[in-house]
């Protein structure tokens, strides 16, 4: 039972990573590593900026 729960949690985490839920965490980690002296973007602003960036760099989707 325990193994099943662990498996489900792992699958959930994997799904979230594939869908891109962890983009802000990734950004925070990157920011902390490269510009530790400046405050990172707040979460809402990050997602908004990410949306707007996608406007100009559309990702192809194949057939």
């Amino acid at each position: 039972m325990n193994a099943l729960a662990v498996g489900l949690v792992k699958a959930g985490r994997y799904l979230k990573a594939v869908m891109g839920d962890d983009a802000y965490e990734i950004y925070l980690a990157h920011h902390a590593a490269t510009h530790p002296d400046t405050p990172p973007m707040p979460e809402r602003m990050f997602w908004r900026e990410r949306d707007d960036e996608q406007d100009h760099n559309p990702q192809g989707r194949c057939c």
Partner: protein
Amino acid sequence: MSKKQNGSHRHADVLVTDPDLPAVAVDPQQAEAEDRRWTPAKIALWVGVALLGGIAWTILAIVRGETVNAIWFVFAAVCTYLIAYRFYSKFIERVITRPDDRRATPAEYKANGKDYVPTDRRVLFGHHFAAIAGAGPLVGPVLAAQMGYLPGTLWIIVGVILAGAVQDYLVLFFSTRRGGRSLGQMARDQLGRVGGTAAILATLVIMVIIVAILALVVVNALGESPWGVFSVSMTIPIALFMGVYLRYFRPGKITEVSLIGFVLLMAAIVGGGAVAATDWGAAAFTLDRTTIAWGIIIYGFIAAILPVWLLLAPRDYLSTFMKIGTIFMLAAAIIVVRPEITVPAFSEFAGRDDAPVVPGSLFPFLFVTIACGALSGFHALIASGTTPKLLEKERQARFIGYGGMLMESFVAIMALVAAISIDRGLYFAMNISAANTLGTVDGAVAYVNSLGLTGVNLTPELLQETARNVGEESIVSRTGGAPTLAVGLAHIMQSFIGGTGMMSFWYHFAIMFEALFILTAVDAGTRVARFMLQDTLGNILPKFRDASWTVGAWICTAIMVAAWGAILIMGVTDPLGGINTLFPLFGIANQLLAAIALAVCLAIVADRGYFRYLWVVALPLAFATVVTVTASMYKIFSPVPAVGYWAQNAAFRQALAQGEESFGTAPTRAAMEAVVRNTVVQGTLSILFVTLTIIVIGIAVFRTIRAFQNGGGVNTEDPIVPSRIFAAAELSTTKAEKRIQKQWDALPVERRRVKARHE
């Protein structure tokens, strides 16, 4: 930066990694030793895989009993993939790509926490797969099933290991070595201005045709189907809701909103059945194909100019979510249900050129009918540009590129199995155009039975009963492949979950996910094409380069939508049936793009000086070139009207000149004039494609020969940056990798990901 290099020159000599960090790569000798150590267990495993694969192929190709169980398709495919991945892709890695994990990838040295991010290989596999796989592998194999199951199965499996996966892997790797540059930019660097421009132009035209024909598949699936129209239209409000939810309510909760969207989607499918059963629902949502086509065109324009967060991104999330789910579901269903297949290995049409679903002889038309799943040039656009920016280590390119394409091929095999699990008479009744079946049950029965196919005795009852079971008015002439796959899937799924009562749900579920994949590709394709056009026009009028200039964006969007919209309308109103005349163009376009991508790879491999192993690229390139050029030549020069666009054009023009009132399947003079117009467009596109491609391939071959004479060429790789991170290369972690990973895990957190270099 470019410098002369010869074959023996290795970057390895000049690469110095940080001595204060643990190793950033497994020692190549150690990795090789581990690879070459054949323990008895390992030998037994591979002998087992080879035996099982061999038995499966024997049953499919040689024994060929009255019926064959679907599970053998799964075994034949999976065992062959495993062997190809373990041995052939590793061979390519050893002799051509020669990855060096001590080199940083663009994801590392350009890391910006946004689009350049070193991403866990398993997550990236999911990303990459979601980006490359769509409706293509679900459609082509269905149409090719007219020739029997064996030609399609062989091409999908052999094609992917020698061509499709090789292309994806090489493009991904070479783009990674070039800062994640796009295929177009690589073509310009490698082939010069003329070759580069031809490649970009070809890409643009090919994208237009691909979007148009994908849209045609959706239109054909939704025509006269109130249930389908209702549930697929509901994806628009659902996506809008998801967009607003993510933007204003809970930013970043992508999985959460996708789950909500998925539940709403299921409700839309169930609700669609209820709505279509009411009088007003049937009246409001029964639309003819031309209306639906216009709907998609208008929708495509609006979707491309709206901000992405509102419609495009949420729909993409939903599509990705469905993609992962449905593929597992399809695999599980086929493995659990294991349907018996009664379709012959080679059908009557395998040796003829008048097959009714898509006309033309097996060679070359089988190889263009099935593009996605075996060899898909479109992938080169994802494998360059998008995925390289996320690739953590060079050695992972094999798992992502080659492995990802094997996965898509497996999807194609499953689609083929689903399509051939239905009655053969039913298959032809659904896939032969209304021009021949007259769109009626009686017409379809008469036409299909007149084909003289062994074992086929189609009854009106079967057609009516199947239509009733899947909740449609009629299933006659539902061309395009999607409805056939949906019937096949419903057929398999109902014996897995729900019984006959659930068939209509499964049918519309399948239509829904195919429509979702395609509309996502249409949205994204239009947008990408718009930016390409803006960029191209920017060479002449610099103002077009300015992405914030709304008028320019609208003009370019309108041009792209008009281009694919015109072809879509042409296909929908085509008196000859539409999909059967246009689908070959789709496959040809896709594989010409593959030929362009492989040509660029050929030039790169030649410039690196690896001539002994040039055949790894030259073989699929030669095959793709021969297939597509031959197919194009048939389409341009064949005197058989069903095959050659210009022959068709001449036949109809002559009939018009002689004052005929109807000709072939065109009942009126207006329809005959439409055929004349359509064939001119199709024929001209064929000529344009093949000319551009021959230019690109010709230049690539010329450059390759020149490189051979000089013993190598210009190195177009980006300068070497030493890597400061470590990650395993494959799905599973080897012993050596675990040892290194332990050392990294022992480091204080702030030293594991050291500062990335900033420009």
